[in-house]
């Protein structure tokens, strides 16, 4: 079964993860621009990070046959930081036109401050200008209210709901999003947020229409294998294979294909993997013989 992992921060993962994911059927990943665990203090660090998302990280993924895409944006945490927020908005347009950029994100709310709302709204306008869909990070604290606020901001912007993916959802938020026409994302974690068993229950109750699952794996306690693991749990629970494939492959493709920059046929083949190639003079080999990898 092919898998499109629609939210994972590979920047913070090792090559073993890429290898395991590839072996488990992950053919493509979407890496949303996010924060880096501690505040960045000047714009240059954002520029280097964005360049990494379209450069080295894409190259790394390709070495394991995985197509790498990203969304670009100012994350809600750092939207609160006046040292960088305006400058990030100023540099984003050039990155929005990169071939591998297939959306704006992750934007949204975290502490639910006026600054977060302002920059979320501004970035929805950015998405309009670049004809891209939007990946929305929803708060982990006071989630239900934050969800409702995110939805209100989207509605106020006049942005089409079918081009919005509200992420990090759970049993409560699905009740809100089902009737809106937007897409619902569920981040499956080893211990917190959602877990595979709870996701099975949601699928059994609501089906898989306009729904995606992801690992949201980063440098914290998280698991890049959570989408394959969830697929196994769904199959064991008797969910038809076609529905599982829709959830983990067709749905994320359908959502991000709204960017006009990817389609299923281009993902059917593995990404070009040539372990003899370098990126900026660097490879993933660390001296190993590529023929023995």
């Amino acid at each position, binding site marked *: 079964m092919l898998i499109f992992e629609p939210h994972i921060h590979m920047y913070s993962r090792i090559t073993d993860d890429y290898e395991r994911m590839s072996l488990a059927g992950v053919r493509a990943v979407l890496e949303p621009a996010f924060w880096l665990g501690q505040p960045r203090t000047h714009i240059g660090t954002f*520029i280097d990070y964005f360049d990494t998302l379209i*450069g080295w990280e894409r190259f790394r993924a390709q070495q394991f046959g995985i197509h790498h895409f990203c969304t670009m944006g100012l994350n809600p945490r750092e939207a609160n930081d006046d040292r960088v927020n305006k400058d990030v908005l100023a540099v984003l347009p*050039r990155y929005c036109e990169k071939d*591998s950029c297939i959306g704006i994100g992750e934007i949204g709310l975290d502490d639910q401050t006026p600054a977060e709302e302002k920059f979320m709204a501004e970035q929805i306008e950015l998405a309009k200008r670049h004809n891209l869909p939007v990946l929305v990070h929803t708060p982990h604290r006071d989630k239900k209210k934050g969800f409702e606020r995110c939805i209100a901001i989207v509605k106020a912007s006049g942005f089409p709901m079918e081009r919005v993916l509200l992420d990090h959802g759970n049993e409560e938020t699905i009740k809100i999003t089902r009737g809106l026409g937007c897409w619902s994302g569920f981040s499956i974690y080893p211990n917190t947020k959602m877990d595979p068993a709870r996701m099975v229950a949601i699928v059994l109750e609501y089906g898989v229409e306009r729904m995606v699952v992801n690992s949201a794996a980063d440098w914290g306690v998280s698991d890049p294998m959570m989408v394959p693991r969830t697929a196994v749990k769904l199959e064991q629970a008797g969910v038809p294979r076609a529905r599982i494939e829709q959830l983990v492959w067709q749905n994320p493709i359908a959502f991000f294909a709204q960017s006009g920059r990817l389609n299923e046929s281009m993902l059917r083949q593995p990404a070009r993997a040539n372990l003899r190639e*370098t990126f900026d*003079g660097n490879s993933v080999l660390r001296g190993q013989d590529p023929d023995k990898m």
Partner: protein
Amino acid sequence: MATIDLRPLLGAAAATADEITQAIRSDRTRLPVLFPSVPRRTGRDIVGGGVRDFGGHTVDLDAFRRCDVTAAHVLLATAATEAEALDLFAHGDMEERAMLLRALHFLPVGQLTVRLFGEVQRTNVALHLEAALCDGDLFARTVGTPGFDLATANKLLLKFAFLDVPLRRCLHAERHANAELSRMLQDLATEREAAGRAVWRDTWRLIGRAPCPGSLARLVGGLEHGDDGVRLAAAEGLLAANRSDLAAFARERLPRELRAPIRAVLARLGGTTTS
């Protein structure tokens, strides 16, 4: 900057190119925003038309894509500065960088060329080496430009050997053969042989043009190699060495060579034919 009219090559992409050009002329900050979209908007199909001369710039259009030519057209039409072009390279993805390096073939040779050749040398990316140096005479035209002396040029030509790219794709590069390059190529060949790895075939062709100590032995030895391509390259290298004292050796070697193309070169070397 505008010296070459590329518009006739743009085909259906001409209207898009005009739109992009106009937008950049109105607002320079649009250049880094619009440049990445060129392949998507104008297409990646091959321009075609074979080797063409553009006012002293030789380019094989069978190896250039519509977006490459559009990028060159946009940069020329908007008089993009060296700083702007370097910024596009620094923050471009792999394909944008390749497109920019392709566009260089149509731009005047200058410090931008030298700086980007330096990036190609530094980064060791095969895609970018091919984009900057292959299918045109840009390399040959750039040798001698301030900052790109023969010693620097040698390092780039050595990349061809490292990456096993045929030298014929870098038009007229052979004219810049020199003894120091031959030494570098022979040292690499010795390393490769010690490791049991193949040697870049064009090594024999280049060292014949500008022999250094050991070249003649390597050329003669190459004629006994089991690989037809190596024997042909060695024979051509010997011919380029233009040593009349090798004629008798070539005539002695000729009967043992079975491959017609190699025999033809040996015959010329032996003085039994002239073409």
